[in-house]
């Protein structure tokens, strides 16, 4: 094996640092508040934060092209996302909504591009 395979000491510090830090973030509440009730308002805020975070992850991935909102290039993706949402709402599950969305995307790109 070449030395490239093993990486550098600095690289390993970065790997270990990110791994430990990320674990501590993940462990934060689980480690110290598991089984201890947080105030109901806070718990409701958490319930609301979850859809907010995931919507904030999803919307840019759907409507943006190279960090810019580009409805011209992304309308097929928006339609596909809408189809996935409708199927998920109507039927639930994982496979069917994703397949429906990707099929919609492929179909639109095949017909219009």
């Amino acid at each position, binding site marked *: 094996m070449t030395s*490239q395979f093993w*990486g*550098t000491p*600095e*690289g*390993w*510090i*970065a*790997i*270990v*640092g*990110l*791994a430990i*830090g*990320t674990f501590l*973030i*993940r*462990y*934060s*509440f*689980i*480690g110290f*508040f*598991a*089984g201890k009730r*947080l105030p109901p308002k806070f718990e*409701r*805020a*958490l*319930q*609301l*934060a*979850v*859809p*907010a*975070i*995931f*919507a*904030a*992850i*999803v*919307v840019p*991935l759907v*409507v*943006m092209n190279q*960090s810019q909102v580009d409805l011209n290039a992304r309308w097929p993706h928006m339609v*596909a*996302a809408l189809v*996935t*949402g409708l*199927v*998920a709402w109507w039927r*639930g*599950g*994982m*496979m069917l*909504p994703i397949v429906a*969305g*990707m099929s919609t*995307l492929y179909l639109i790109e095949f017909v219009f591009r």
Partner: protein
Amino acid sequence: MSHQGSLPTAGEERARDAFIAGFKQCVVLTPSYIPFGLVCGVAAVQAGLGELGAIALAAFAFAGSSQAVLTQFIASGAPLAIAILSGLVVNLRMAVYSAAISQRISNTTRRERVLWAAFLVDQTFLFDEQRHARGLFKAHPLAFFLGCSAILWPTWIATNTAGAFLGAKLPPTWQLEFTIPLSFIAMVVPLLKSSGQTGAAIAGGAAGALLFALPLKLGLIAACFIGAMVGLVIDALLAMRAVRGGKS
């Protein structure tokens, strides 16, 4: 009906059922890991972490966006501490997942809590959120969670490894990366059971797009706060209207 001897066995079987159910549900997500896993593997090698480092990073960080940010900063010659901190900021959202999980597990040993934390990523969290919302496997939530992790963690390592050794050469027309937002949509939509949650999702989505230019995905954290606030306001308005409706 009391067969004391058979009770533990029945319990074990249910734990195994929960594990298998989690595993099966998450198999569907494996294709969505391929494009991003390949890209992360390539980026790690290009940043000089070496193939072994790329694999270790995937295995022990198990967090794609932060891996990408870390390797990007290292490749651009940023100081090590800045690169690590930047990657960690990207993962701050996981504290929200940790808080949500902490409220639904009790009587756990430290080992169990470590397992919950070790495999807590967007996908495993959302599946647990769904499991919880449906009231499934209440006796064995960790088994379900670990079933999910047992397919997703090795898949993440495998795709990063493939990227490190082979590069990322998927045909762009496949757009496999688009299955990631679609999978999140499929998981979140069934969770929207109140006007507050729907309002939080709409506000969060709008904020996520408007604040996308913020560095280190800080827009996600901001969107999380904005969405939760909007949701709480909607809750309060509905409660006020209910009170008024009750009086008149």
